[in-house]
């Protein structure tokens, strides 16, 4: 069949599905990325949705997008799409800017009604011409008509028919990207195992889409995606928020400490609460509290009781939790705080991504209140870093803030499900009986600088914690000046010592270059792609993405001082650059910044680096 058409082999492809929130774009995108992952493709997805739950149908503000990248060396969901699927004129208008110049558009021609054109604020009755699109790049598919004829005698009602437009689009996409319809049908059979009639109808619609592409548009390019070799193992598809929840469960299993979540709904972090609430089936106690403050405070209570205690939130919630986190610093209790960053300040851009909570995480408390700050680099890295956050909290008796962001929290990638041996045991710093018997006091420290975790219910270990300063020797409250300074330093030292366990900074790609590109957290994919591209173009650039923010890897400044150009790219106006600059005053830290609520585009980073090198 393919001989008849024009086949292009490429190593990765980006598809953007856009429509009303009820159009099922995410489902279509998910199925496509999953059948690709099964073939061994790497995948990355990115939902881009409005803050409104149900904006008016067909309106410009109601369009939501779902971008999928599949193939080889997929670090990001892609800057721009090779193919845009637009389910109505509004989706076409708002999403055209995300399409490559030579990209292909698949559009529902039946949706170009006078009413829809008006809602999408077109001046003419021809959106293609009005937007200046080359008609040869457009597949204007009469989706509703095709579905009606495919389901003519099936007894399916009109409303259900309209709901299967996403499946028609998926059928066409499968044709364009040379994916067998059968692998999609396998997924659907599993999904609709109990509703065979629904499955049958959807199967007919998908086939109709595939046939339509094959029969009528053979002049458009069909892509064959080269697959990459993934590590052997069993895989699934996870979002960053789900991976975060699972990483915490893994830490609970590896530490023997039951998992407790005290939380309050907030975009874009709520899915962590949802997932852990479901995980009562693994013994997790996840409770929704009356506010953000109660979320962190209930977690502090659970931590005192001996649980792996977590609170999950986003920027505004982190602000509300500050005083509680300060109490955990002072009481020296383990606590994991997940901050899924979004656009700020204040309510800001709730559904969009940013890296603007860095300084709040590092410094947003009264008094000298150091704690450990980590950042996850990708949806799957959320699992690893959530595990790390829990491990450090329980082994070092400290609150840990894990920074993720809306981009990696909602985005997904293929994830190799870890086996038991892939993660180490965690050793919570629980008061040993022999230490108790030697006359233990609540704020005694071991060689690591950590206080012991003495769990209520333990005979003989009754003690009082609190927000007031304690005497370093007797553990009773103290307002003595020199003692206070000693305790301030002890708390700081405890955090500094975590650096001994932080993996060293080892520049990637071209370590001996003059220039190093640095980032932290969720921008990893875009920066890695940009650095790779720069090296491929002959510009030698080293690259490192930080995951441990406080403490930094012990060799950070020694390594960085070797580079002529140190460039930090981040989605804020320079918070991490300032943080590094503070420790590295003799070097000028150069910056690439963006605060638009959207991830970097790879080319923005490439251009930014080139500008700095040339300057």
């Amino acid at each position, binding site marked *: 069949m393919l001989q008849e058409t024009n086949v292009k082999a490429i190593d990765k492809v980006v598809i953007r599905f856009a429509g009303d929130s009820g159009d099922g774009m995410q489902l279509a995108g998910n199925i496509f990325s*999953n059948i690709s*992952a*099964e073939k061994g493709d790497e995948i990355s997805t990115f939902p881009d949705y409005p803050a409104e739950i149900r904006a008016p149908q067909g309106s410009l503000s109601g369009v939501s997008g779902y971008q999928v990248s599949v193939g080889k060396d997929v670090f990001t969901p892609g800057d721009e799409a090779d193919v845009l699927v637009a389910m109505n004129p509004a989706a076409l208008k708002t999403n055209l800017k995300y399409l490559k110049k030579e990209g292909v558009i698949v559009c529902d021609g039946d949706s170009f009604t006078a009413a829809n054109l008006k809602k999408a604020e077109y001046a003419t009755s021809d959106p293609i011409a009005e937007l200046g699109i080359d008609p040869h790049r457009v597949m204007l598919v009469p989706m509703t008509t095709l579905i009606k004829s495919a389901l003519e005698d099936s007894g399916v009602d009109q409303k259900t028919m309209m709901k299967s437009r996403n499946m028609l689009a998926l059928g066409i996409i499968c044709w364009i990207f040379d994916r067998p319809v059968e692998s999609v049908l396998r997924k659907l059979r599993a999904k609709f195992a109990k509703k065979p009639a629904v499955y049958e109808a959807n199967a007919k619609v998908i086939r109709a889409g595939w046939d339509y592409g094959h029969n009528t548009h053979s002049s458009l390019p069909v892509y064959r995606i080269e697959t990459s070799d*993934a*590590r*052997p*193992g*069993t*895989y*699934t598809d996870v979002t960053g928020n789900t991976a975060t929840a*699972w990483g915490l*469960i*893994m830490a609970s*299993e590896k530490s023997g400490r039951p998992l*407790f979540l*005290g939380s309050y709904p907030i975009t874009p972090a709520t899915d962590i609460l949802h997932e852990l609430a479901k*995980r*009562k*089936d*693994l*013994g*997790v*106690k996840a*409770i929704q*509290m*009356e*506010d953000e*403050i*109660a979320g962190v*405070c*209930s*977690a*502090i*209570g*659970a*931590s*005192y*009781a*001996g*649980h792996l*205690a977590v609170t999950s939130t986003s920027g505004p919630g982190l602000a509300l939790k500050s*005083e509680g986190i300060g*109490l955990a610093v002072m009481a020296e209790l383990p606590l994991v705080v997940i901050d899924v960053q979004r656009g700020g300040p204040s309510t800001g851009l709730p559904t969009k991504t940013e890296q603007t909570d860095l300084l709040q995480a590092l410094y947003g408390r009264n008094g000298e209140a150091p704690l450990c700050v980590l950042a996850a680099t990708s949806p799957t890295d959320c699992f690893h870093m959530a595990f790390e956050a829990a491990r450090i909290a329980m082994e070092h008796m400290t609150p840990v803030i894990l920074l993720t962001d809306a981009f990696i929290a909602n985005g997904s990638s293929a994830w190799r*499900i870890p*086996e038991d041996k892939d993660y180490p045991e965690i050793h919570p710093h629980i008061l040993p009986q022999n230490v*108790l*018997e030697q006359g233990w006091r609540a704020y005694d420290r071991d060689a690591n600088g950590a206080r012991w975790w003495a769990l*209520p*219910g333990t*005979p*003989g*270990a*009754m*003690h*009082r914690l*609190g*927000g*007031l300063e304690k005497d370093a020797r007797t553990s*009773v*409250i103290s307002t003595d000046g020199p003692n206070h300074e000693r305790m301030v330093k002890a708390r700081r030292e405890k955090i500094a010592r975590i650096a001994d366990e932080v993996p060293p900074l080892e520049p990637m790609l071209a370590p001996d270059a003059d220039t190093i590109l640095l980032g932290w957290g969720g921008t990893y994919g875009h920066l890695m792609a940009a650095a790779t591209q720069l090296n491929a173009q002959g510009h030698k650039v080293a690259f490192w993405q930080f995951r441990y923010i406080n403490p930094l890897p012990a060799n950070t400044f020694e390594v960085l001082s070797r580079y002529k150009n140190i460039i930090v790219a981040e989605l804020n106006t320079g918070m991490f650059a300032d943080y590094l600059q503070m420790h590295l005053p003799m070097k000028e830290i150069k910056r690439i910044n963006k605060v638009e609520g959207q991830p970097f585009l790879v080319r923005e980073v490439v251009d930014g680096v080139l500008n700095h090198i040339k300057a």
Partner: protein
Amino acid sequence: MEQNENKAYTATDYKNGQTARWCPGCGDHAILNVLQKAMAELGIPPHKTAVISGIGCSSRLPYYMNTYGMHTIHGRAAAIATGLKTANPDLTVWQISGDGDGLAIGGNHFIHAVRRNVNINMLIFNNKIYGLTKGQYSPTSDRGTVSKSSPYGTVEDPFIPAELCFGARGNFFARSYDTNLEVSREVMVAAAKHQGASVVEILQNCVIFNNGIHSYITDKEMRDDHTILLRHGEKMLFGKNMEKGLVQDGFGLKAVTVGQDGYTLDDVLTHDAHCRNNFLQQQLAMMDGHDLPLALGVIRDYDALVYDQEVARQTLEVKEAKGFANLRDLIMKTQETWTIE
């Protein structure tokens, strides 16, 4: 180090040797002593008891206990106690708050802990003033209260803790005052025995900033006529010789003298703390010692589903029903997976 769980405890077992640093004459000293006696009477070992407080004079209390305890941050004791109790329902958890800590900055946590019916014992030390910050009016200060932050008198009405408790669908409310050691001990024991959120208001005298605020009910010569001790199943009688009683009067209550105006002992109401309908209990709790005597003792004590027990039950049930061995087992059985050789 081993402790015999069946041993008889005395108040001393709950004292930790630290000298209480409240002002001489402060009502908190008496409440601390009574609490330790109540704990001994309950016989729950110190290592299974936790006392959680917020910020304020009364919130220093955990530092004087030989139990587990945490002196936390302003207003948050109820939320921290909720987490502690939900994580480990085997502990007996007491929350100590003043009127400012519990009902102003901590008002939200107070009503939600009561609504959820978390099995914690919430003692509200009500002196109608902020003491530790040296004398500002509180959310329980009467209208017109002159304080450092209201030099011309307050122009706002106070919360009545009982009304807030009932409004939050509370199932246990009791009241005492600091110098009434016997009733204080009685209501603390009842609060601990009640399963669910137990709110105990203790009228407390701040000798420095609000001295005598409760004296119209607590003074020796006043208390017989201005308070009534309620006990479940007993007639609502008060007065020096128990000659007065409470009777129903239309939709309200009325104080009468038995044997006068045709009222007999049969007309006097019998207290029912266990009644689900809280209408009459709420009216009793709202009596303020002026027209009608202030009610002391256990006013409401109704058994309802308990939050921390329900969380534990549901978690166990779901876990057993699903039967996953661990996270990996769950992912393999519930997620769409694929294998790459």
